[in-house]
């Protein structure tokens, strides 16, 4: 039956995705919740909780406040706390009861902002979707409101003045391609250095990393994101921000995670291509009008001019002849691992994506499988299954199980065993 789980875990929820995405940015995030969300998030979903004084709270909503629609209590409590704690911004997100009572997140955020003078967001999470939904929504909110407009001269230099990174047929010395990394949270990348490995890899290949959304960058660094030439979306949590930054600044984005040498080269090629294209458009005769605006004209121009999506399936064979290697997990990470496996070993793969993921990035062999009963039949005949250890009880014994823990599914339990796939993909590949 759909929606039941006899034995497997549950993915981190949307409200926790909001908290995780905003954790390092100096804001105050409030889950409008009676109790339980705070301890769940801080215990299982937030490995930085012990070491970083980030302001994440619950509202402690009571039965009577919910029934009477007493939003004033929440607003007063937030205003009171903010006057003492002075956060850079305030975010309110939701859980099932506010969803049931029709809580108006936008209106409450506006009142809070009016009373405190601090930018405030209302993220209408329900506690019923996965962290991807919440994290994407939160990062999109930051992109929408807190990223600075950019001066024309910052982004509209002449075509050909960019150093094409990663080798290739480009001039030897010019500017670096500037990149934002979107979709970094410990829920997908833990705290094992994977986030730093992505930015190091880019820097080693002559890219300039403007900002990392949102691990390892301050809010001030994120404010500069509009200066980038391209965005690299490393998990579906970054898609919302990618779309906003595209709309606001015309920054194209590449979806992918640099696992394995071949894939790294493909991503660099894609980043270079879209960066050149975007610079070309920004430097066109109407650049002054286009940069920093959201006109429909620009969007259509860019869409025509720039191949802004990197199709992960391009280099990967489609598996029509049976299942060899099945990967269960977050969409982009799993697809990147699938691509790396197919590039490096030639083995056919299938991805079972249990979190929100746009279907357009999945291949025909891949599946969206939110429930235990969606997953079990898809594992029939698999020779190898790569998944979080908490999936193992539902995997057929005939398949080799390769453990790939993720905080988003098993929390802190296997944290020490979570590999840095960017730096050491062989941890998985060598087991195939």
């Amino acid at each position, binding site marked *: *039956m759909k*929606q*039941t*789980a*006899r*034995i497997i*875990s*549950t*993915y*981190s*929820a*949307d*409200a*926790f995705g909001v908290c995780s995405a905003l954790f390092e940015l100096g804001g105050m995030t*409030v889950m409008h919740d*009676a*109790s*339980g*969300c*705070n*301890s*769940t998030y*801080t*215990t*299982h*979903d937030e490995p930085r*909780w012990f070491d970083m*004084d*980030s*302001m994440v*709270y*619950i*509202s*402690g*909503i*009571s*039965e*009577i406040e*919910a029934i009477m629609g007493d939003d004033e209590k929440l607003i007063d*409590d*937030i205003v*009171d*706390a903010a006057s*003492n*704690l*002075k956060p850079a911004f305030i975010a309110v997100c939701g*859980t*099932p*009861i506010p*969803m*049931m*009572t029709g809580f108006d997140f936008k209106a409450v955020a506006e009142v809070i902002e009016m009373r405190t003078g601090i930018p405030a967001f209302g993220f209408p999470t*329900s*506690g*019923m979707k*996965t962290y991807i939904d919440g994290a994407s929504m939160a990062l999109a909110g930051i992109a929408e409101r807190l990223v600075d407009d950019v001066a024309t001269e910052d982004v509209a230099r002449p075509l050909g003045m960019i150093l094409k990174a990663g080798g290739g047929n480009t001039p030897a010395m010019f500017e670096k391609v500037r990149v934002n990394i979107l979709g970094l949270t410990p829920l997908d990348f833990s705290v094992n250095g994977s986030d730093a490995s992505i930015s190091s890899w880019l820097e080693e290949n002559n890219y300039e990393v403007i900002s990392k959304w949102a691990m390892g960058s301050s809010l001030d660094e994120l404010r500069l994101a509009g200066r980038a030439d391209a965005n690299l979306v490393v998990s579906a949590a970054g898609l919302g921000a990618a779309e906003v930054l595209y709309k606001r600044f015309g920054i194209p984005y590449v979806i992918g995670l640099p696992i394995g040498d071949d894939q790294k080269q493909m991503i660099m090629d894609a980043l270079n291509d879209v960066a050149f294209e975007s610079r070309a458009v920004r430097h066109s005769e109407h650049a002054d009008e286009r940069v920093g605006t959201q006109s429909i004209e620009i969007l259509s121009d860019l869409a025509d001019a720039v191949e802004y999506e990197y199709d992960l399936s391009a280099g990967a064979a489609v598996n029509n002849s049976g299942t060899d290697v099945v990967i269960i997990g977050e969409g982009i990470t799993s697809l990147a691992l699938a691509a790396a496996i197919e590039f490096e070993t030639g083995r056919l793969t299938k991805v079972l994506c249990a979190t929100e993921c746009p279907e357009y990035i999945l291949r025909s062999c891949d599946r969206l499988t939110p*429930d235990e009963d969606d997953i079990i039949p898809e594992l029939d005949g698999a020779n190898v299954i790569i998944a979080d250890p*908490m999936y193992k009880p539902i995997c057929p014994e005939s398949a080799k199980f390769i453990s790939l823990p993720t905080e988003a599914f*098993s*929390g802190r339990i296997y944290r020490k065993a979570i590999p840095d796939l960017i730096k050491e993909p062989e941890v998985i590949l060598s087991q195939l």
Partner: protein
Amino acid sequence: MLKRVNAKETGPVIAAVRVADAAFPAPFRSGLEYSSPARGTWNIVHTGMLIPEAHEIFVCAAGCLRGVVLTAAEMGTTDRFSTVAVRENNLLDGDMEELVIEGVSDIIRKLPKRPPAVLVYTSCVHHFAGCDLDMIYARLRERFPDIDFTDCYMNPIMRKSGLTPDQLMRSRLYMLLHEREIDPEAVAIIGNDLPTRENSDLMKLLKRTGRKVHEITSCRNYAEYQEMAESAFYISYNADAAPGGDMLSARLGGKHHYTKFSFNYDEIDDEFAKLADVLGVPGFSPEEIKALRADCDKALEDTLSLVGDTEITIDYTFCPRPLGLARMLLSHGFNVTRVYVDGIPGADKPDFEYLRENHPDLMLYPTVHSSMRFAASENAVPERDTVLAIGQKAAYFDNTNHFVNVVEGGGMLGYDAVLHTLELIREAYSEEKCMRELVQVKGLGCDVCLR
């Protein structure tokens, strides 16, 4: 009232109040709530797992399931735990009852072995949607007559009205007991997560009078659990277990008696005299009491001579009477400076009054106030390196590895609570523990459930 306790000019003001200025029973304004990394107290998953062989099924939204499914995983009981996810369409379609019935049925059919009991946990959304829980359980009992079902709740929105979720959970622990013939010599200790210490005054009293003692923590299987129903007396000493004890008494016929946890000699004597009277057994004799008091006095002297003026802090997770403990220690010359407590337990009111009068500068700190997010880093200064903390939250907030790592009273009761607490203080003074690692483990002592 807020007090600036951090020396820095800028930064948040950490909430704190002198006990002399504190209001009873709520010294701090209710507001946004922070959650410290200290996680040793039990939750409803741990407590439910005390019923041997029982299977837990939670029916909630993903966000609510997340914490409980990983609690079960961390305690090694995923094979006794399942979930049914409530999604938005269920609220809109009004099929919440069907989801519970069919979801629970589906899981039971998939289990490799039929459990003797299933605990079905519904949540706030069921409460707000007006779900017909009686109908749900009636259907499930019809479908699975060989299984005992009980209704459990994860509805924290009710924590400020009526029975708290903790009280409800402790009452549900015994709802599965079937009525049976009462053995007048049998006694059940109810409502504890942790086993009552063999050295506790309660065990001593029961054992020496030849009573047969049941406690859920020692039941190895469901049949042994059912034997608790033969008890003529149900003894609780956790205040949150008392409502469940009354329900049990009304349903099965044994007599329920609540014995108050205390560090006060006179109160201990009074409580045990009442208990002996209820049980119809001789209590502790004056000579025994005199000897116990002398032992405690000596332990207090020995401990004080060891720790001297070491700064001591206490939090409410250590035991049900944090102010009572502060009173005992302060009145014997210990340097207790802080008590971390969000609300003052009713039983602690006399101690609160005593402290206001005699130690007005003792500071009360909250644990959930929004400013407490910054307390641990504020306290990460060399001059507080030597603090001795009693309880995990105090240890975390005071950044100390010298701490007593016990939650929920640790199965202590009577003069044993005094003696054992002092023993633990001496141990904490002499030996360091890794606070960072230890306090983050959920449900301290929950391995008692692994049977």
